[in-house]
């Protein structure tokens, strides 16, 4: 049963991921991305991380990709892009080299860490099996708002800075104003 779920979810993710980069139409690519995100959510459910699964759907599929689609529709770039012209010379070569390098890194990392994948390391405590359904969420809350609260707050500051910066950049100022 677990294997079936794993294979199906992984197939979903891979089909979606391939779709994102091969579909010419940006809207189709965004929809493929949604498929991938759902595959990840299924994996989370299979691993009994229900909260992460729900948040994955709400934040990524429900908000971020919706905003992608919104921008695509608003800007009217939902036509197949012309892939012949190159804005940056040799960017494809560089991208290819970078992708190969990344792939090599990943393969080496997985190969070297193979024993960690099979044996459980000393990480966060797992939820006790009979501790009630909210144990998972309580642990998450403790680590986000307790142990790592500074990092969490810094991230939110970063996001606010990004939002303010975007607003400042996009608003055209009349001549003569500071």
């Amino acid at each position, binding site marked *: 049963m677990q294997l079936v779920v794993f294979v199906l979810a992984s197939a979903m993710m891979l089909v979606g991921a391939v779709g994102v980069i091969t579909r010419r139409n940006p809207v189709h690519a965004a929809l493929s991305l949604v498929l991938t995100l759902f595959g990840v959510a299924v994996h989370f459910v299979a691993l009994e991380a229900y909260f992460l699964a729900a948040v994955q759907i709400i934040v990524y599929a429900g*908000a971020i990709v*919706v905003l992608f689609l919104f921008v695509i529709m608003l800007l009217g770039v939902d036509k197949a892009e012309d892939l012949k012209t190159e804005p940056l010379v040799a960017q494809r070569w560089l991208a290819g080299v970078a992708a190969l390098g990344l792939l090599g890194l990943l393969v080496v990392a997985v190969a070297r860490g193979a024993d960690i994948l099979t044996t459980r390391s000393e990480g966060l405590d797992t939820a006790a099996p009979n501790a009630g*359904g*909210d*144990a998972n969420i309580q642990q998450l809350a403790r680590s986000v708002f307790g142990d790592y609260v500074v990092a969490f707050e810094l991230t939110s500051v970063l996001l606010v800075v990004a939002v303010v910066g975007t607003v400042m950049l996009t608003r055209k100022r009349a001549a003569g104003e500071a």
Partner: protein
Amino acid sequence: MLPRDLSSHVGAPSLRPMLDPALEGDLLWAPLVIVILKVLVVFVVGLVATMLMVWFERKVVAGMQNRIGPNKAGPYGLLQTLADGIKLFFKEDLLPRRSDRFVFALAPFLSFVPAFLSFAIIPLGGDYRDGNDGIVTWFGIETRVQLADPHVGVLFALAISSIAVYGIMLAGWSSGSKYPLLGSVRASAQMVSYEAALGLSLASVLLIAGTMSTSGIVGAQATLTDWNVVATGVVPFIIFLIAATAELNRPPFDLVEAEQELVGGFNTEYSSIRFALFYLAEFMNTVTMSALIVTLFFGGPQPISFNGFTLDIPFVPNALEGTVWLLLKVLVFLYTYVWFRATLPRLRYDQLMNFGWKVLIPASLAWFLLLAAQRLARDEGWNVFVTTAIAVVVLAGCYMLMQAAFAVSNKTRESQGAQF
């Protein structure tokens, strides 16, 4: 610091068995049959409820406008929806030439399926009295009268409602026509904006209930004063009701299909069964959202009980009585939605956005922080009144700051020649 023991709250909700007890342990035949039965019942009940809702809405609106409404098909026109549905089935299915075929065909299902999914987590009955926890026994198996009771129940509903936007958005885009596109761009902006207010007012309920499972939330609302509408202090309920109306794209927030401006809105190019699916999803969502409001704020299948006195329906077993109570409460909200539709004029687009971002989201966030402060004061043994007073003062300061920011921004825009 966090309160050390999060489960020390009312009734220690995290200690109750969270999942449906029938689904724990090995998979046997009896639970499987029960689950399949539940799926069938939920699906059929959903469809029939939608059918009746369409009739109910038409009849009530007609009454409010001094008309008769549907009265030909069946007694009191009850079968009018069925007749319309059959008619739509046999109509020609048009496919616009400039449409995106695949997405155009996919969109109705993307809005239809989520409408049904969120029905799965709503407790439809069961006996929650005297610590019974809503568990009923069918064929010797203990279970709940709801299709699924996931740990993250309420978040599931939120996730489903956030996916529901895809159907409308893609329908408008894939039609390859400008009015539907305008409708769907409006829809996506509106639904994403009000989703935030919806989630924040929901957070207040979760804070009070101390659990996310829908059956746990219902279980914690035993008496009238425990009902979350009282326990969270009405404000989250009002915000939730408004935001839910906006999420449903129902009047007065139905800019998505503003007939006067957009021909028919996102579904202009749809016909036949695909149009029927959109129509069905819209009314199904209304029913589900009403049921969700009742579950979150009005005790779901719990009877009205106050100060040791419980309003009991005679001759009806307690487990069945829950369903009756739920039905009655849901009917009240269905009527409220119809009432909104018949009486409130549609908002303008900028009013909609201003209301969502500048009123609802700050208000729900402020109320959530206030409740959190009170909760923390109780857990740490501080004086609740002093803490509340300090929180109110701080929030008032935030409000002034926000008003000042609005004033500055309005002035800047006026100096740049904006008209509004």
